[in-house]
């Protein structure tokens, strides 16, 4: 799978999208144990960032902080140069969307109703969606190949269809930044690649920014421009794909032996895990 070269454009001159300094976060229900320690992070617009790290390393929490669904206890986070806590939630939701790993609903909403909810931050209270809203919703549904499911009940869909509905809702939200939290973890390989391609297209062609927590390192290698490695709530390393996804780093972060095959014109960087027979 070939991928366009990472946008050299004017990226470095642009204002950074996110700047986090000395970010610390702990859950109150966690006995006060820190989940994220002194995180320093600079995210530039127009790139696809892959967030990797073992389970419990703080990936989801970091995404929650960037989408302001949780806030830092210490340190600071700027979004487009403004303190993220000073931005109204609804305004922020027109700029950043979140796709969770799993989503269940106990209520029988139809697919169309759920995708239209992505327009919520754009539509004033007591107003009806405009034709522009409907256009975006239909486009999002088409790109996730779920337009034929519009009148169906969400609860009747298969797991893969459900997840495409969730991605479509985030696309309908039409934000310049998209946060994916293991968004494709429950999907088969066909739909995984379809979604990653669509997201990659948003970055390469429309200059949007994506930050995606990804477990599959090969998937991260194939689609991301930059990799952020988290371990035990700290940033272990950040950098380009070839620079970060090395056998040494994989051994140090995941305690797994691996061989890495460099990217060529025919294929992206590949990781082969060494599994000892029992």
């Amino acid at each position, binding site marked *: 799978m070939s991928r366009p070269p990472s946008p050299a454009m004017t990226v470095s001159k642009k204002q950074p999208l996110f700047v986090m300094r000395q970010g610390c976060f702990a859950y109150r229900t966690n006995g006060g144990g820190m989940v994220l320690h002194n995180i320093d992070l600079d995210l530039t617009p127009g790139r696809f960032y892959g967030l990797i790290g073992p389970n419990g390393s703080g990936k989801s929490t970091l995404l*929650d902080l960037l989408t302001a669904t949780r806030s830092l206890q210490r340190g600071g986070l700027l979004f487009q140069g403004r303190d993220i806590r000073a931005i109204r939630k609804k305004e922020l939701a027109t700029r950043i969307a979140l796709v969770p790993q799993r989503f269940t*609903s106990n*209520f029988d909403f139809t697919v169309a109703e759920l995708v*239209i*909810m992505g327009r*919520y931050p754009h539509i004033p209270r007591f107003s009806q969606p405009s*034709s522009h809203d*409907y256009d975006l919703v239909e486009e999002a549904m088409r790109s996730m190949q779920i337009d034929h499911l519009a*009148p169906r009940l969400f609860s009747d869909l298969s797991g893969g269809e459900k997840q495409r509905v969730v991605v479509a809702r985030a696309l309908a939200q039409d934000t310049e930044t998209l946060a994916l939290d293991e968004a494709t973890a429950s999907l088969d390989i066909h739909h995984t690649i379809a979604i990653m391609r669509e997201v990659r297209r948003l970055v390469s062609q429309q200059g949007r920014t994506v930050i995606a927590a990804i477990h599959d390192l090969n998937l991260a290698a194939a689609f991301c421009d930059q990799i952020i490695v988290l371990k035990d709530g700290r940033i272990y390393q950040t950098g380009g794909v070839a620079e970060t996804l090395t056998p040494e780093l994989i051994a140090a972060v995941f305690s797994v032996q691996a061989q890495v095959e460099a990217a060529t014109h025919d294929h992206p960087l590949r990781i082969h895990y060494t599994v000892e027979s029992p």
Partner: protein
Amino acid sequence: MKTTAPLHSLRRHQRKRGFSALTVLALLLSTEIILATGMGFLAISPWEVMEVIWSSISGLSLPPAMNPSFPFVVMEVRLPRILAAALVGGGLAMAGAVFQAILLNPLADPYTLGVSSGAAFGASLALVLGIFGISAPAFFSVPLLAFLGAMATLAVVFYLAAPDGRLSSNTLILSGVIVAAILSAGIGFIKYLADEQVGVIIFWLMGSFVGKTWSDVTLLTLFTLPCLLVMLYFARDLNILALGGRMADSLGVDSRRIKKILLLAASLLTAICVSVSGIIGFVGLIIPHLLRLALGPDNRLLIPACFLGGAILLLTADTITRAWLPTELPIGVLTSLIGGPFFCLIFRRKQLGQRV
């Protein structure tokens, strides 16, 4: 190119259906109020009922041929009771819909957070103090203490759930169960103290609309209408909350704040209903559940529909016990006896994947 999007027409169709459903429910309720007012030991025709109501609104005199006791029976005896039953039914059903939406659980009801146990504890306390001759007259102290008990319970539940940054439904439900269990033990102790006069407490707990007056109706209206408006105002946010706290937050809904406001409104409504009428089960569970099956989960439609539907159901139940049954059954018992098996039926059919 100006093509009408199919989604657009789908939505317009849904809205039209919603409006007609609300109109039908409103017509049903008004008809039922007139008919029920005519029913009872002294039968009055619907036409005469309307004449009496119209004359008391407009101040016009009544036709001389009418039975002179009719105006008193309609305006002072039946109508306050009927309106109280309708308002309590509507209030409980709306509160139920909101609790179900916030707790992400179609089987939640207005009593899930222990609000009813708090009210029952307060009322029992007032009654037992009355038995020992310590408190103010029961007609005043019982609703007051019931209301205070309900609100205190909510405060404790919020306090227990507060460390959970998103007030998730599991945390809230667990906190409610814990508080309710403690309060039940407290009620048991009060019943033990009441000894031979325990019947007063048991009878209150089973719920009744006997002897409701215009002041009850005024009180209920003063709480129900503002709560209805608050719930309608936040109905769209409530739909988004159905996606779960994290998703709602990422879509720009301040889930914690809106949950607090709506839980407060729904609990206030429940507390006032319970303190006026005692504990009436199943209305707040069945009506939102049934209407959601019929109209879909959109709270902008569901909440007003629940108000009308709950009013219709509880008024029907109260009319059965008041005008049809040879002896008046406590209404809480009646709603649970009819509602329980009915609910089992729906639940079973839903389990089997049939659309009800």
